[in-house]
């Protein structure tokens, strides 16, 4: 009887575990503050001669957005967690901010996370965007 219960519990745990991981990844893209000064934010991860090409762009509103401090982070998946491989920062004093960087990477699943603090005068908001994953 114990073996039956154990088998059943293991099956339930396996099924629930798969769902939780999927939901956790989906939910990560959904948690966002208000967008007052940001129109579009993009995150890109591509393969450039075997290196990771990491890019981010933030577009605000001309005449409203005055400054954008953007951080582009290359992350690698370790089991269920994402660990930072490299972080780049760039600040512009206009309504847009675009940047791209390349980085040699080890094999594994990677993604790019773009976080930006977007200013309108002394007011600000923080927004983020996560690229698709790429297996190097």
């Amino acid at each position, binding site marked *: 009887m114990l073996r*039956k219960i154990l088998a059943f519990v293991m099956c339930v745990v*396996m099924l629930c575990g798969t769902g939780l991981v999927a939901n956790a990844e989906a939910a990560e893209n959904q948690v966002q503050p208000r*967008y007052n000064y940001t129109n579009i934010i*993009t*995150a890109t991860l591509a393969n450039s001669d075997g290196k990771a090409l990491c890019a981010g762009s933030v577009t605000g509103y*001309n005449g409203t957005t005055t400054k954008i401090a953007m951080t582009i982070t290359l992350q690698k998946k370790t089991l269920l967690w994402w660990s930072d491989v490299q972080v780049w920062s760039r600040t512009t004093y206009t309504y847009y901010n675009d940047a791209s960087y390349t980085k040699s990477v080890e094999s594994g699943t990677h993604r790019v996370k773009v976080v930006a603090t977007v200013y309108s005068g002394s007011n600000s908001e923080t927004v983020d965007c996560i690229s*698709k994953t790429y297996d190097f």
Partner: protein
Amino acid sequence: MFLSKEIDEKLIEAFEIYNQNLCKSLPSDEELRDIMFSEAFEKKMEKLIRAQKKSYYYLINTVGKRVAIIVLAIMISLTATTFSVKAIRESVIEFIAETFEKFTTVSVENDESDTEVEFVKTAPKYVPEDYSVESELETEVLYRIIYNNIDNNAIDYMQTVNLGTIANVNTESIAYERISIYSCEGMKYVKNGINAVVFADETYLYTIQGQVSFDELIKMAESIKTE
């Protein structure tokens, strides 16, 4: 638990005596001959004997094993379905717009997602009257042109690769409309008094926004098409 060899031997001897006494108390074959089993019992026994003859009997002989096999079969079928659906989705370019409370996430699925990026910048051939290029910016995966007119109104054109790109578009408290630009899927919306068009072809994601009419933005978008 092993006590000692001597005690073990005595225990084995005692067990054999107990078994012999137990066998003596059982009914004899002659007495058992008159016992009739029910039809249901006979059927169950026949079924069990038939099942035991099958080579995979020991894989399914308990409820736990059967549950495990069913769950495994479900998991395999679900995985197979996912892969097959993905294959179908990736066979065509698909403009995906997922709307959340504060923004819309735009991404493009296509079957060339494993290829390396090769960025070729493209500028719109049509630009509304009175607008001229104020600035250009280019990275390895992005091309941006800012157009301005004499009233200091700006049109912002951006081209970026769609491989591996996710775009979050501010659609909070507004509705957007799906559109088609030279057979490519896209969307248009107005936010904070600025009209915007977002669309994608097989390689790039484009956004054009500014304080001009949608007709003008769509003309610009359609002029991007390269032959």
